[in-house]
Every structure is written in C-alpha cells, then in structure tokens.
C-alpha cells in the first residue's frame, strides 16, 4: 500500500494561540490518527502529538502553521487539526 501524505497551512484562530489548553487538545487530537503528524511554524517542525514540542513553537493567534501528515489517515488528520485550530 502506498503511503498517503497530506499537507496544508492554516491560520490559528484561538486567542490563546497554541498554548495552555489548546496546545494540550491539539496534541491529544493529533495522537488519535493512524498517521505521523507534524506541525511547523516557520522553519521549525515538530511532532504534533507532543504537547511540550508544540508549546515550544510559541504559536500565537494569527500565526500560520503548516500541518503535514503521512500514513493511512493522513488526510483526515490534517483536516481535523486544521478545523481545530483554524477559523470556524
């Protein structure tokens, strides 16, 4: 089976950015998919399932992050995470 990949950019809407509770929820959501999910701000890309690494990206409201996933559920993972952090 070929490896599926998905990628998209999204502007973070939450006024807390990816800090505190939103960071924890983001990491938890990323862990639910059968895919290797990464999130990047600028040059730096980290494992999206790690709350600590997501925190260290210091993502604020209005920042654009890049979501990248590979694995059977790559597309679903990217769509779900984009929905979670993006504008409603």
């Amino acid at each position, binding site marked *: 089976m070929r490896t599926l990949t998905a990628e998209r950019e999204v502007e973070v809407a939450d*006024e*807390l*950015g990816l*800090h*505190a*509770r939103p960071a*924890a929820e983001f*990491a*938890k959501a990323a*862990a639910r998919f059968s895919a290797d999910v990464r999130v990047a701000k600028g040059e730096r890309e*980290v*494992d999206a*399932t*790690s*709350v*600590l*690494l997501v*925190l*260290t990206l*210091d993502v*604020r*409201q209005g920042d654009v992050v890049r979501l990248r996933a590979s694995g059977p559920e790559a597309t679903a993972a990217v769509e779900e995470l984009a929905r979670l952090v993006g504008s409603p």
Partner: protein
Amino acid sequence: MRTLRGVAASPGTAIGTAYVYRPDVYDVPTGEATDPDKGIAQLAAALDAVAADLDDAAASATGAARDILDAQAAIARDPALRAAAEPAIRHRAQPARAILDAGERFARELEATGNDYLAARAPDVRHLCDLAARALAGAPPRTPPHAIAPCILIADDLTPADTIGLDPTLVRGIATSGGTRTSHTSVIARGLGIPAVVGVRGLLDSVEHGATVGIDSRIGQIVIDPSTEIVEQLTASGEAERVRHERLRAASGAGPTTTADGCRIEVAANVRGVEELRAALAEGAEAVGLLRTELLYIDRDRPPTQAEQEALLRGLHELLGRDRRLLVRTFDIGADKQVPFLPARPERNPELGVRGIRLARVHPDLLDTQLRAVAGTSSLGPTAVMAPMVATLEEVRWFVSRCRDAGIPSTVELGVMVEVPAMALMAAELAPLVDFVSIGTNDLTQYLCAADRRHAGLSALHDAFNPAVLRAIDLVCRGAGDTCWVGVCGEAASDPAWALLAIGLGVSELSMQGVAIPEVRAAIRAITREHCRDAARDAVLASDADTVRAIAQRLIKEQQ
C-alpha cells in the same frame, strides 16, 4: 561561625536548629541498568501512573489548580518526553536518572524561550518528572515540610502547597535561597509573624540539617553555628521583641492614633477576608485601608455573583461597626494574579500588560457586578472604593462614572490607587476628580525603578527608601493638597521609620498587615508632625536610599 546575607523578608530575630527541607533529595539509582527494554517499559508505566494520579487530582480541583494539573497530566503522556529519555536507557542508564535528565532538558528549553508563559511550565515538567523518578526509585512521594520540634526552616524556596501547614509555634524562622521581599514565602512569613530572610545565595550548601542557625532579619543576615555571644544576643532580642510586641499591642487597643502634637493619622489594615480583619482589629486596626477582593475570583470557573460579593462585604462591615471605614479595591487581576474564567493571552510583560482597571475595561460587566455589591452594602457602614493600576485621568473619570451608574451613593468615597508613576506626575489634576488616593508602594517602586518585584537579582532596586520613591509621594501629596486625602497601602507603610517619613510628606492614612499595626501606632504617637516634616524634607533631598534610611531611623531613635 559563618554569616550569609540575604533580603529581610519578615521582621524579627530567631535562633534554633536547622530543619533543612530538601524535597528533591532522594537516592536516584546509579550504575548500569541490565535490561533496557524493561527500563523503557517501567518508565512508561511510571509516567502513565503519574498521569492517572494527576487526572484524579484535577477531577477534584477547580479553576487555576485544575488547569495546572491537566497540563501536567498532558505532559506526563507526552511521547516526546518519553522518547527523549529512551536513548539514555538504551545506553543502560537507570530509568529514574534518564527521565530526570530528559525533563531538565525540556524545562531549560522552555525557560530559554523568553516567553513568561512557557517559562512558567518548566516547574511543571520538573515536578512530574520528579514524581515519576521517585516512583521508579522506590522513594516516598514529595511531602511538604513538617516540623515536629522548634526549628529554623531552611529551603530552596517554598511553594504555596509547602506553606499551608506551617506551624508558627514550631517554625521560629525561615531562610530560603530563592525569593524576594514580595514573593510567596515572604508574604506568608509576614502573615504568620515568622522572622524570615530570603534570597540567601549558597544557603543549602552551607547549612547542615541539625546545625544551629540564627536569623536576624533586621539586617537580612543568617548566622550558621553562631558563637555563644551571638546566641545570647539573638535569644535576648527575640525574647525582647516578643515582650515588646505584647506591650505595644496592649497599648495599641485604646483610642485613635494621633501624633504627639495632635494630628490625626488613620492606621488601617490590609485584609482579604473576615478572619484577617478579626486578627487586625485585635492588633488595633482603626479601619480597613485595603480590601483585596481577588480571592473571590481566583480558582473559580465563573465570576462571583453580586450576592457572594455582598456576603463578604457584609461580614466585614459587621465586624467594623458603624464608625470604621471599609475601603474596597476593585479586582486587581492580571500579571501574577490570573483567573481561569478570563483566559489571558500570554503577554511578553504581564506587569506592564492588561491588569487592574485595564482588565475591568475589557470586562466592564465584572466591574459593574462588584460596584453594585458595594452600593448594596454601603448603608452598613462608612465605605470607600478604589480602582487599581490607573494610568490616565480619562481612566479615573471612567471609573467614577461607572461607580455612579452602578448606584453607589455620594456618601461612599471614591478613589484610585497611585502605583503608575504617570499618576503621581498628574496628581494635581487627579485630586479634584476623587475623594482620596492610596499609594501602592510595591508597584510604584517597581515601575519607578523598572525592576520586576519578583526578580531575586533585582531586590536591591526594590527599595521604598529610594529618594525617588519619596519624591513621587511628595508630588502626590502636594498635588492633593486639601482637595483629597492621601493614604499608603503598600508594604512600606508597615515599617515605622518609613511611615513617619510618609506622614511628614502629608500622608494621613497608612494601611498594613495587622501584625505591624502596634509598632507603627506607637511610633506615630511618640512624635510630632513637625518633626516628621523636617525629616521628610531632608529625605527627598537625599541622593540615595541609605541616607534616607539613616534619616528615618534617626527619627525612631530620637523618640526612645
């Protein structure tokens, strides 16, 4: 005998046996581990158990505490944290050692971001790695200090959880290597009347458990293995202090406070609730000069209702009676005092961010509820209300009109705090808009000297005897003239020598922690207003804090 210097945090002297509280010390297993796969599995199990415990604790917690516990649980489950510990375990490190090292790396990375919010997560990471390492090492869980005999408590720093059960009859003194005059340990020590010196560098390397330690917070000094002579001195002065306070306290109860030449000075108490007021009244408090209302907001999922706020105010009015004023400060949330129902955006400089009245302008409904509670209870006794962190006259006008719109009658005095230097400079224009101003010396000093009050390395800059601070207060008093009265509700008011200088500048109300009241009242009664004025005139012209301190201390000495 060895002496170490620190910052005087809570007045008094004490001598006793060192109780060295080292919550982080236990035997982390050393040597090579035999089975890396087993070690990785043990670590995963330990972190899962820590996460589950934190979940349980979070479930029974509310507000800010709950958020912290939730965050710690999420970090305990973080795959990156586990992955960071794995290589060391593969190289046959003990799992406990590996997780402590991995946690430390993450904590440092968070601290290095320069973002206050992220840096504040570093202790969370260290804490939960410590919990996991303890479990792996078969060590008992972290427990707060528990004194079973009279002692001097020696620690790196104390957390709120550490200080809950402190027994002042056993803990005779406190010395910590961290902390500043305004940090948690200092505030708790003053509240309990325990002499304390904080910010003592090298403390834990110098003091052995069971050593004899003397604390002299008058000069911010601790003495390890003191000579017989020093032991006798400290014992005598500790005893003399106790006797003197009892005598002052007995004398304090009677009548109002006036200077020797008959000038009335109101000596009031800073309180958070009924219990603190009861204690302050026993010390001779003549009023409440600062009701901190933040306790109503902290650790809550939703803001307090008008009825809850009225219940607090009613309880205080009942104790105060019909003649003693209750001065309510509207919520001073923001900076170090965050509440869960108002999620704050991480700010680069929270002390310079949206706090005090700035937050009230973002959430005027919260302020209105509080003001309606003041209006609803103002018939019970003399009442005043003031807003914190005001920086412009426009904010003052906004606050006053908000008070009137909330139905606060004209019998209630309206005022603002002067803590932002801009307000001191505008005092003449401010005075006609209000009935009073109250100077918050902690923040005023912090902002005048641009020195974070929680920064241990900057405590020398946080000195209310700095002549610049007195000049600012002089400006406020001159601007106020006879148009509005001027009070002080900062820490400095509880220092009798400083209080006399403030009176000399024209301050007519001093509000402080209850325990400081008897001594300040005695100092005021022994001196004339004229004498204070002369000293204050010299103090504002002085070029440094030491000179001001010497002038103020001369005032105290002369009366003895």
